[in-house]
C-alpha cells in the first residue's frame, strides 16, 4: 500500500534509492540505539511477566510455605485439586460466571448499542450514563453494591415498596444468591465497555444493505439477525475472547464484596488462588490453581492474538 501511494509521487532518484535500501532485506542495519529502544522494554517485560509466569509452572510441582527451599512433589498438587471440593465449587462458579457475566453483558451491551447507535437528542447523555460505571474501580463498584444489597438497603426497600416483601433477603449472606448478586454488580460495570465495542462495530456496517432488505420486506428483527449480525462477526470474536479472559481474571469485585464467602459459595478460581497463595501461604498449591487458570485462558488468548495478527497484516 505504501508503494502504491509513493509511486505516482514521482520521487527523485535519491529518495527512491533510500527507499530501496530501506526495503533492502533483513541485512539492513538497525542502529544500536534502536536496538536499545526495543531491548530495554522487552527485557522489562521478560523479567516481570514471562519469567514469573514460567516460575509459576515449576512452583506448581512443589510444596512450599515460602520459607526454606521448595520441596518437589510432582503432580501431588494437581491430584489434591482434583479432590478438593472448594476447587470444584470455584470451577463451577467460574463457568457460571463466564456464561452469566458474559451473556448478560453481551446482550445488554449489544441491545444498548443498537438502541443508541443513531445520533439524536439525548443519545450522548444516555451513552455517557452507561459508560460511567466503567471508570469506577471494581473494588469501589463492589462497595457501592454492598450498600445496595444490605439487609435494609435500597434493593430490599425497593422490593418492599413494590409489595414484593417475600423476595427480600440478605443477598450477600445467602449462599443461594451471593454469587448472582456479585455477578449483577460486575455486569453493571461491564455493559458500557461491550457497548463501546459494538457501537464501533455498528458504525462499520453498511447501511445500504439494511435499506435494501427493508425494501424487500424484511422486518427489523430479520434485518438485525440476517444483515447486521453477520457483519459484526469480527467484533463478536473480540468480545467473546475479551469476555472469557476477563471472566477468568475476575478478582477485585468478589474480593471487595464477599471474599469468596459465605461458605466459599462465591469462590472463583482467582479468589481461591489468592487465598491459597497469600492467606494460607500454600505457594505450590496456589501456583497449581494459577496454572489451571492459565490453561483455561490460553485458547482464548490465542483466538484474540490470531485476530490481532490478521489485522496487523491487512
Amino acid at each position, binding site marked *: 500500500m505504501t508503494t502504491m501511494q*509513493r509511486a505516482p509521487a514521482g520521487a527523485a532518484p535519491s529518495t527512491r534509492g533510500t*527507499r530501496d535500501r530501506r526495503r533492502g532485506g533483513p541485512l539492513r542495519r538497525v542502529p544500536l540505539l534502536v536496538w536499545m*529502544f526495543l531491548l530495554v522494554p522487552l527485557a522489562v517485560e521478560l523479567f516481570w511477566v514471562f519469567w514469573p509466569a514460567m516460575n509459576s509452572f515449576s512452583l506448581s510441582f512443589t510444596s512450599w510455605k515460602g520459607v526454606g527451599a521448595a520441596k518437589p512433589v510432582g503432580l501431588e498438587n494437581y491430584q489434591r485439586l482434583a479432590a478438593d471440593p472448594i476447587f470444584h465449587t470455584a470451577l463451577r462458579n467460574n463457568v457460571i460466571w463466564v456464561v452469566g457475566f458474559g451473556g448478560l453483558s453481551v446482550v445488554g451491551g449489544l441491545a444498548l448499542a443498537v438502541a443508541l447507535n443513531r445520533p439524536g437528542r439525548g443519545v450522548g447523555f444516555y451513552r455517557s450514563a452507561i*459508560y460511567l460505571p466503567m471508570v469506577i*474501580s471494581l473494588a469501589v463498584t463492589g462497595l457501592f453494591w454492598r450498600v445496595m444489597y*444490605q439487609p435494609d*438497603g435500597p434493593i430490599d426497600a425497593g422490593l418492599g415498596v413494590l409489595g414484593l416483601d417475600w423476595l427480600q433477603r440478605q443477598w450477600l449472606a445467602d449462599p443461594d444468591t451471593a454469587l448472582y448478586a456479585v455477578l449483577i454488580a460486575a455486569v453493571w460495570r461491564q455493559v458500557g465497555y461491550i457497548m463501546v465495542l459494538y457501537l464501533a462495530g455498528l458504525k462499520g456496517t453498511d447501511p445500504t444493505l439494511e435499506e435494501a432488505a427493508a425494501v424487500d420486506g424484511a422486518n427489523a428483527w430479520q434485518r438485525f439477525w440476517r444483515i447486521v449480525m453477520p457483519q459484526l462477526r469480527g*467484533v463478536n470474536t473480540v468480545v467473546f475472547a475479551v469476555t472469557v479472559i476477563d471472566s477468568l481474571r475476575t478478582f477485585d469485585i468478589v474480593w471487595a464484596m464477599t471474599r469468596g464467602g459465605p461458605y466459599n459459595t462465591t469462590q472463583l478460581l482467582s479468589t481461591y488462588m489468592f487465598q491459597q497463595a497469600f492467606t494460607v501461604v500454600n505457594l505450590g498449591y*496456589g501456583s497449581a490453581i494459577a496454572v489451571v487458570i492459565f490453561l483455561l485462558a490460553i485458547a482464548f488468548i490465542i483466538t484474540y492474538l490470531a485476530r490481532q495478527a490478521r489485522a496487523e497484516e491487512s
Partner: protein
Amino acid sequence: MVTATSTSPARRNHASRSPWFHVVMVPFTILWLAPILFVVLVALRNFDDIAARGLGALPASLSLDGFAGALADGRVGRALVNSAIVTVFTVVASLALASAAAYALSRFHVPLRRTILLVMLAGNLLPPQILLIPVSRITQDLGIYDTLTALVIVQVGFGLGFYTFVLHGFMRSLPGEIFEAALLDGSGPARTFWSIVLPLCRPALAALTALATTWIFNDLIWAMTVLRTEAQFPVTAALLNLQGGFSNSWNVIAAGSLVAAVPTAIVFFVFQKQFVSGLLVGSNK
C-alpha cells in the same frame, strides 16, 4: 435536559425515532445510575439517621459526617496520594518504554519483529494470577517489596505489551514520506523519534493515557500482591481496610468510596473521547 428531549417534537434526521425511545431510556438511565445516586445519598446522611431508619430510606438528615469520618485520620487522603504517585509514574514510564519499543518495531527491519510484537501483547493477556506468587517473591528478593516502586515497576511490566501493540499500529500508519524527509535532513533515529514520531502520536498517546490512568488508579490485585503496610496502600486497597474498620458506618464507607471514584470520574468526563477511542484501539474495532 433529558425531559426536554422527550417532550420535544421529533424533527430533523432522527424523525424516525419512536417517541417510546425516551419513555424507555429515561427511567432506564435513572435506574442505571441508581447505585451511584444511592451511595451519594448514604454518604450525605449521618450515622443516627441510617441506624434509625435503615440504609434504604431517603435522607432525613444532611451532613458531611461521612466524609469527615473517611478523611479524618488521614488514611484515605494518604492513600489517594499513593494512588496518584503510582499512577503518574506508571503511566509515564509505560508509555515512554512502549513508544520506544513500538518505534523500533514499526520503523526498522528488526528480525522477527512481528513475533516479538505478538509475544509482547500475549504477555499482557496472561491472567495475572499466573504471575502473582513469583512477582511477590522477586520483589522480596530485590528488597523492594512493600514499596510504591515495586507497584510501579510491576504494573509497567504487565501493561507494556498492550501499549506497545497499540502504538505500533499507530506508528506504522504514519506516512513514510515523513521519515524519508527526516533521513534526508540527516536526522538520526533518536531525533526523528523525539521531534517527529512522538508529536505525531499525540492522539494515540492521549487515548492510552486516559485509559491507563483509570486502569492503574483502579488496580487492586497488584497492590495486594506487592504491598503489606497500610501506609503504602493505594486508595482501592485502603478502602477495603476502611470497610473492615467501620463495618457499620455506612456513611463513612460510602463517602470513602465516592472520594476514591472521583478522580477517575473526572478523567472520564474531561477525556471521554480519548477514553472511548482508547478502548477501541485495543480491540481494533
